[in-house]
């Protein structure tokens, strides 16, 4: 055993929550090992395609479709996946997973320093007590052991540090945060906001709350309105591990970072009922290594954290680490997500916009709040989207050749507006992660198997969302062209979560209210795996708040000698 690899804490995974865990624990004075399965990507130095034009790329930014079909069959479906960003997504052929016979699940992954913090959509929303109270209210899943008041100060802390631009609206279902100035609505969205609110005062179209800086902050530059964030941003204008939490952790002098290191097991001592460290495979040398620590934070991404717990089963815990309840891997969720309506928006032809705003608009949940007015569902849905103009790609759908056709494509096209629904996903025991022991990965580790299906609640919510979106865009002056009422495959929203849910009862949940394993006092899981319900807004801000809160609790336990 290499004694130099003995730490106060080990953080597994360097994405959105891993970066936060590393920052909080190092700033509290702990010696921390941050371990990342993917390659090192240095801020500003390694964003290779950031400044490239399409004509500088081998396939003009479109990428090699043949290659993508063979090796990126899932990742290529991600809206941020392009030839410019393909290096920030996993190679599916090299990183396989299994799905059940009735499951369609697109698992979008980024295995690299910074994880999905480099490729995320940056939408940053607080959850409310409609969300933390959802399970108790309708009986699905298990009640959250926390409420909004428990998290509010931690949301403050996170927003203060990462920088979130947005507009305060005073809505109880989407609590306001500590915002940087908002991006503006364009002319169509501004008109839509006013017309929708005039007809339905409870439906509030507002600018998306996004972790892009609208002014300089702590050495990070303001957003340049490029909206190509997933290439990496040398301005540091959006929150990523590289731009924000990693430099803070490194500044303490307490951080050790190891990349290219895929953790395969967490070590557990049944005598002390504590985890003692982790083992990993160095992907460059193919050697196995290990490190020890007084506490472990799992931040590998919801499904990979569960995978790691399942794969760390021991004689003492044969069903997986921290799984005395038997619920580990169950009740996974992803928002039911679909394009509810797309409309042509006439009357604004004299206006266009300049620059690429890195966020769309949002219409927060308005159903099933004080009045249960959902048709066939008990929870919420919200919309994201925006108004945009077409450009040359619209010509692919149009007949014509020659100079007139070329002249037409020179102009910005007609305004359109889209509303995309995100519906709350009911936690179900049948939606679960298991190990497929018949299929192993390149390291000989059983692959993750995903069994997942949406149900009647989500389908009903999306049916109502389609009807609502259609009437709103019509009221806003649009001519609705089409819309859908069925969800995309699981994983489409890239909000996969659950599997190690939080709850008060150790018999029915994996984690307590501090994101701490009921079974193992020095093990914390603070990524999406901890979620007990899904809400209908983006979850990353909540993961970050829960991580900072858990880190403070862990430090206090460590300092008091309790762990």
């Amino acid at each position: 055993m290499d004694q130099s690899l003995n730490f106060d804490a080990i953080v597994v995974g360097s994405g959105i929550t891993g970066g936060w865990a590393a920052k909080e624990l190092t700033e509290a004075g702990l010696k921390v090992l941050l371990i990342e399965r993917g390659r090192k990507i240095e801020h500003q130095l390694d964003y290779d395609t950031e400044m490239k034009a399409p004509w500088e790329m081998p396939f003009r930014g479109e990428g090699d479709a043949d290659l993508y079909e063979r090796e990126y069959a899932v990742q290529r479906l991600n809206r941020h996946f392009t030839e410019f960003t393909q290096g920030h997504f996993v190679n599916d052929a090299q990183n396989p997973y299994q799905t059940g016979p009735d499951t369609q699940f697109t698992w979008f992954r980024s295995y690299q320093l910074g994880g999905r913090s480099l490729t995320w959509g940056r939408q940053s929303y607080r959850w409310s007590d409609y969300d933390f109270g959802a399970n108790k209210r309708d009986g699905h899943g298990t009640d959250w052991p926390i409420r909004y008041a428990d998290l509010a100060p931690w949301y403050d802390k996170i927003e203060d540090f990462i920088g979130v631009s947005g507009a305060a609206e005073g809505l109880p279902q989407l609590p306001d945060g500590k915002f940087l100035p908002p991006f503006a609505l364009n002319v169509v969205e501004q008109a839509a906001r006013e017309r929708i609110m005039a007809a339905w005062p409870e439906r509030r179209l507002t600018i998306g709350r996004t972790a892009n800086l609208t002014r300089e902050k702590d050495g990070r530059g303001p957003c340049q309105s490029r909206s190509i964030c997933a290439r990496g941003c040398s301005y540091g204008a959006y929150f990523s591990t590289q731009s924000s939490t990693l430099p803070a952790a490194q500044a303490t002098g307490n951080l050790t970072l190891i990349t290219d290191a895929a953790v395969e097991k967490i070590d557990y001592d049944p005598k002390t009922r504590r985890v003692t460290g982790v083992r990993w495979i160095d992907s460059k040398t193919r050697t196995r290594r290990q490190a020890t620590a007084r506490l472990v934070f799992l931040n590998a991404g919801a499904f990979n954290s569960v995978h790691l717990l399942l794969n760390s089963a021991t004689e003492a815990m044969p069903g997986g680490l921290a799984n005395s309840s038997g619920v580990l891997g169950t009740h996974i969720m992803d928002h039911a997500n679909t394009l509810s309506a797309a409309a042509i928006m006439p009357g604004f032809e004299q206006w266009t916009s300049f620059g690429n705003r890195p966020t769309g608009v949002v219409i927060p949940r308005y159903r099933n709040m004080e009045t249960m007015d959902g048709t066939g569902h008990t929870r919420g849905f919200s919309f994201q989207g925006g108004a945009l103009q077409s450009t040359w790609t619209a010509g692919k759908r149009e007949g014509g050749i020659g100079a007139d056709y070329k002249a037409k494509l020179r102009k910005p096209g007609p305004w359109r507006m889209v509303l995309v629904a995100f519906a709350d996903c009911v936690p179900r025991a049948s939606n679960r992660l298991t190990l497929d022991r018949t299929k192993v990965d390149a390291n000989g580790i059983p692959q993750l198997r995903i069994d997942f299906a949406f149900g009647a609640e989500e389908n009903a919510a999306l049916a109502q969302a389609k009807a609502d979106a259609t009437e709103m865009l019509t009221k806003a002056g649009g001519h609705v062209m089409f819309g859908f009422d069925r969800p995309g495959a699981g994983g489409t929203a890239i909000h996969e979560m659950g599997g190690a849910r939080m709850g008060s009862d150790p018999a029915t949940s994996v984690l307590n209210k501090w994101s701490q394993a009921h079974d193992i006092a020095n093990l914390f899981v603070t990524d999406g795996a901890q979620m007990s319900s899904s809400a209908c807004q983006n979850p990353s801000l909540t993961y970050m708040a829960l991580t900072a809160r858990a880190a403070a609790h862990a430090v206090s336990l460590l300092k008091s000698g309790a762990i």
Partner: protein
Amino acid sequence: MTGWNRRSFLAAAALVAVQAAAPSGAEVLRRLDPKEEPPPHCRMLMRLVADLVIPDTDTPGAGAVGVGDFVLVALAHGLEGTRRAPATDPSFAPYLRADGSLDHAGWLESRLGEDWLSLPPAQRHDRLAALDAAAFSGDPAAAPWRAIKALILTGYYTSEVGGSQELNYELVPGRFDPKVPVTPETRAYSSDWTAVDFG
């Protein structure tokens, strides 16, 4: 065009990179395995077709910026779904590959007529215009043209000329202005990525 289907990623990347820098036929050909090289008449046909879709005006057209060769590379690599099996139409049979996909370039050559290259320009235009009209009025036998046309647009508007002279290109706008008046001089931005993806 057989034998040119499965070129390596690197060979094609080199080809396209060379086109971007200097769209000269001789340069391109030197980078290719002779076995993989499309015959000259095939390159000429695709160049002329591209140029009829996007001709020279006050900015250069698609022919001048190497779009024909881009389309051939893109077809070989399945962009616009061109390596997936097409909707079945009996007329496609002679141009189906072993994997069920359509040899779009061979199909186009046949569809335009073996004599197309030797026709006067006005007749070449009229035949292509007729094919375009058929494809966009729902004729299933003309449907593959839509993918070829899409690749011509991609080749042109992602070229430096198409992207930054015919349209505007601004990699670093520096600000978002939500309300800008449209004037006769207004041009779309090829760097409006949301419009490119979802417009």
